[in-house]
């Protein structure tokens, strides 16, 4: 996920101070990992340098934060383009799950045990997210659903792999 383009997108709502951008970013997208101020200001100056935004005039009495940033036409175009283009549908083949299964098989270990505990861990997380959904607001549900569908995809891969483990083991060991 692109922090600069997301901040730029928030800026499209209207001229904003870095502080407000950070607050809104954290509220919508932070998921427990808030942006640092230094990161926000560094990003805003880069956006200004690249002509995606301009810094407004220094304001009197505006607290420590002296200026607002304003998105440029070029910035608006970037946001529009970014929102319209699909994210790369990465199969994420180098994931830890994949690595652990293959390594276990290469080493002649029983990958089934690992898949079982991974499966249990995934379901435990899915239970937490489901409970969170049952209590949360609309955006919480949206976010939790995304995580749930991804975990579900992992789980299907886990089940599919578990069902073919012997066959995969033969292939992997034949290769090493």
């Amino acid at each position, binding site marked *: 996920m692109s922090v600069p383009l997301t901040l730029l997108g928030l800026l499209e709502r209207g001229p904003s101070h870095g502080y407000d951008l950070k607050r809104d970013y954290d509220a919508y997208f932070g998921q427990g990992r808030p942006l640092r101020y230094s990161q926000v200001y560094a990003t805003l100056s880069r956006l200004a340098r690249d002509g995606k935004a301009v810094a407004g005039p220094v304001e009197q009495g505006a607290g420590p934060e002296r200026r607002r940033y304003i998105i440029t036409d070029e910035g608006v175009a970037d946001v529009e383009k970014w929102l319209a283009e699909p994210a790369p549908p990465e199969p994420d083949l180098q994931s830890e799950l994949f690595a652990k299964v293959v390594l276990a098989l290469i080493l002649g270990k029983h990958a089934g045990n690992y898949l*079982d*505990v991974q*499966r*249990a861990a*995934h*379901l*435990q997380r*899915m*239970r937490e*997210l*489901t409970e969170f959904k*049952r209590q949360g607001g609309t955006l919480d549900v949206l976010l939790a659903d995304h995580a*749930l*569908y991804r*975990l*579900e995809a992992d*789980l*299907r891969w886990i*089940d599919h792999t578990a*069902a073919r483990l012997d066959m995969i083991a033969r292939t992997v060991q034949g290769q090493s």
Partner: protein
Amino acid sequence: MTGDHNAAGHRAPEHRAPRLSVTGHGHGASGRFIEAVDLSLSFGSTPALRGASLGVAKGEIVAVMGPSGSGKSTLLHCLAGILVPSAGEVHFNGMRLDRLSDDKRSALRRGRFGFVFQSGQLVPELTAEENVALPLLLSGMRRGPAMAAARTWFPTLGLDGLESRRSGELSGGQAQRVALARSLVAEPEVLFADEPTGALDSMSGELVMNLLVGAAREQGTTVVLVTHDARVAAYADREVVVRDGTVGTLTGAKP
């Protein structure tokens, strides 16, 4: 469910469960509300259960997962007293369910259990609301109050206005929700659900699960839920996985 399952179950069991004495009352051998010990059952020469054990506490919601053909439905049917295992023991609330006469088991099913299956469970001659009211009518409630109780389920299930449709006039998903209402209307002590969301899209599946879990928690209903859908299983307190006719416990309490 066919009627020949008992005959099919009379095969030489592979191993006998240890004899457990029935404890006083309230719970099974280990104190669980429902306790299946070392169940075996074959259909002809196909072994469906091979020493399957599962304990369920009162008020617990347990998801039963596992590959197709692993024995999930057979296990559910044994727990619910629909099938009798050829070996092993099924305890319900301190009773040996597998030792009860057919009549007593049917009475138990009617009086204390609720069922929801994947499809084809509504009585086609009855309207949707009559279907929902059926368990109440069978238990002797008068028609007026039974129908009134049945009707309260329709708005919550997004079925407003469909009360007098017959099952042939409902979509698969609508019929499934009617069946869910019917399974819960009499506030059963145990709800047995076999792929209750199998025919539903993700939105109605979610609606059904929220309702099922909400009602179960409110009523203190114990739920045994067979599903291959992890998102559905995530509504349960814990899951067990059935493989080749045995139960492997992965999370939550010990068996």
